């Protein structure tokens, strides 16, 4: 008869305080929001949904950053993210509703599948990345999810709007990770300027062909 050996770690949950368990569940909320928003950012065709997903995404980013930074400083990420979303949204028109050619089931399924692969990769490599950064695991998940989906978005899209959404998403992922190692106010400020600059550059490229010479 086989003797099953149990590790004491398997019963850790029995000895944890309820407050710690609650805290861990609470910290999972931004990750769950990010999982939803990353799907929406990637598969939704109307630009309004994409922008709304981006807005929710920045809420999660600020939430995650607030785990390692003071809330006041983390709020910068939220404000800047929302401003960037507003800048990108402001240059969209109803004509460009992202539905060129209509809804394609294969494209939708492909994107969904690709996001599934990204999730799989992210949750698989997190322990490895943890060796490098030693950040809270929720931060790593959030960060890697955003970086992965941002890269995916940049790789499969040809429209400036989608590409810049992907770029901002990937950059947001990097910012979460970087927040765990650096809490300089100046860096936060300069990164905010870079985010806004990217949104402005994206907006410019979306409408540049309709502009008259500056």
């Amino acid at each position, binding site marked *: 008869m086989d003797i099953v050996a149990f590790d004491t770690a398997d019963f850790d949950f029995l000895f944890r305080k309820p407050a710690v368990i609650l805290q861990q569940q609470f910290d999972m909320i931004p990750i769950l929001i990010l999982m939803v928003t990353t799907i929406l950012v990637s598969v939704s065709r109307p630009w309004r949904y994409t922008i709304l997903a981006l807005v929710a995404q920045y809420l999660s980013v600020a939430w995650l950053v607030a785990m390692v930074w003071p809330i006041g400083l983390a709020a910068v990420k939220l404000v800047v993210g929302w401003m960037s979303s507003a800048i990108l949204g402001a240059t969209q028109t109803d004509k460009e509703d992202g539905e060129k050619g209509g809804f394609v089931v294969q494209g939708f399924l492909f994107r969904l599948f690709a996001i599934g692969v990204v999730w799989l990769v992210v949750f698989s490599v997190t322990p490895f990345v943890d060796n490098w950064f030693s950040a809270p695991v929720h931060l790593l998940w959030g960060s890697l999810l955003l970086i992965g989906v941002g890269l995916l978005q*940049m790789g499969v899209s040809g429209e400036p709007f989608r*590409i810049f959404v992907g*770029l901002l998403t990937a*950059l947001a992922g990097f910012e979460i990770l970087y927040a765990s190692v*650096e809490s300089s106010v100046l*860096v936060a400020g300069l990164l905010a300027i*870079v985010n806004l600059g990217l949104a402005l*550059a994206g907006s410019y490229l979306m409408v*540049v062909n309709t502009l008259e*010479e500056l």
Partner: protein
Amino acid sequence: MSAALLWIGVPLMAAMVFWFLRRQKLLCILAIGALNLLLALLAWKLPIGGVINFLGLSIELKAVWTILGRSFVFGSGDHSFLMLIFGMGAFWYIGAGVAKVGRTFAPLGLAVLAFLVAALAVQPFLYAALFIEAAVLFTVPMLVPPGQQPGKGILRFVIFQTMAMPFIMFAGWIATIVEANPTDQRLLLQAVLFMALGFAFWLAVFPFYSWVPLLTGEVNPYVAGFVLNFFPTIVFLLSLDFLNTFAWLREFSLLYVALRLIGAVMVVLGGIWVAFERELARMYGYAVIMENGFSLLALSLHSRVGLEIFTTLFLGRLLSLVVWGLALAILSGQRRVTLDDVEGLLYSKPVTAGAILAGCLSIAGLPLLAVFPMRLFLLEQLVKVAPVTVLWVFIGNIGLFVAGLRLVSSMARSDQGAQFDEKVIPAVFMALGTLAIIVVGVFPGWLTRNLVGLLDAFERLQ
């Protein structure tokens, strides 16, 4: 007064002023070109950290300017670097008057130069990534003027340059830890890996180089040349700064092998692609990739001679890119020019044809043209340490020669009698540029000797 105010603040303020005057395009270009020249001359004459006597006033030119706890530092060895940047700027602005650039080129180009200088002067260095990113964002309206459809090249350019920023910032963070634990091999490897990826994105190193020919093919080649000349130059100087600062990086033996391998791959791939390319502006892009590859090969020599070759390569590259880019911009305007479109160009526009060939063949390393002396010296040194690499590099170089020969063949081919159709003023600029390529090729000594002064700023690399 601080040096940072003079060489960063003044160009930035001037860029803002000239932004409002941009409708006077020629005036802007001339004034900004003159300002660049003035800043280069001041870099030559003024003692950084010393006292200047001006109109009876004694003004101290402070080497360090501290803002929000961070510093912009100009050492006494930075004269050559400032002269190089603003001298190169003046050179590009001279040609801009006839290169059909947009109105935004002059003021935004000056702001880009200011950000790039700031990137080299800022301490700690991780802020350099943010300044370079700012410069990248300022190039967007310059590269794609209003009314033009943005293509894949500009989008990839922004993506790849932005991707470099996080890697360099993480490298900065890990570098500070490595300084405290220099024996930790795992940390060392991480720092080198992050730095390598950051620089690979910035320098369009294989396999992140696809945007270069795309960009040159879809925007004004002169503006693309401006970007592709300044960004790699600054990033290469930044890499010297890193090597100078971090002993663990200098002593990382695998680094030089990797540089040699990547440099050779860039030269070979660039050479193969350019040999089969039919579009002239894309050829220009591949030539830039090859030139960056040669600079990496010079760095890989890991010796004083290698560094001297590395710095002197800047001159040949500048002249070749300016002249080739100018000729392409004048020839193409907004349309794409292929080998078929240049048939008979030697008869209809001989100066333009000559400038294109001079730029192309100079980068290919044709004897008596600007790049040749440095290229020959580089290959002589390289063959001593890696003969097989030289063989591969030679194969890549032949690719660019083949492209040059295809250009000559197309330009000389004409079914009907081509009419002479060269405009005088652009022709004068191109002829002077071509002459400069030949003069530097025949008499390389004087200017290249001054360029070696760039190494004064990196005292640990002597």
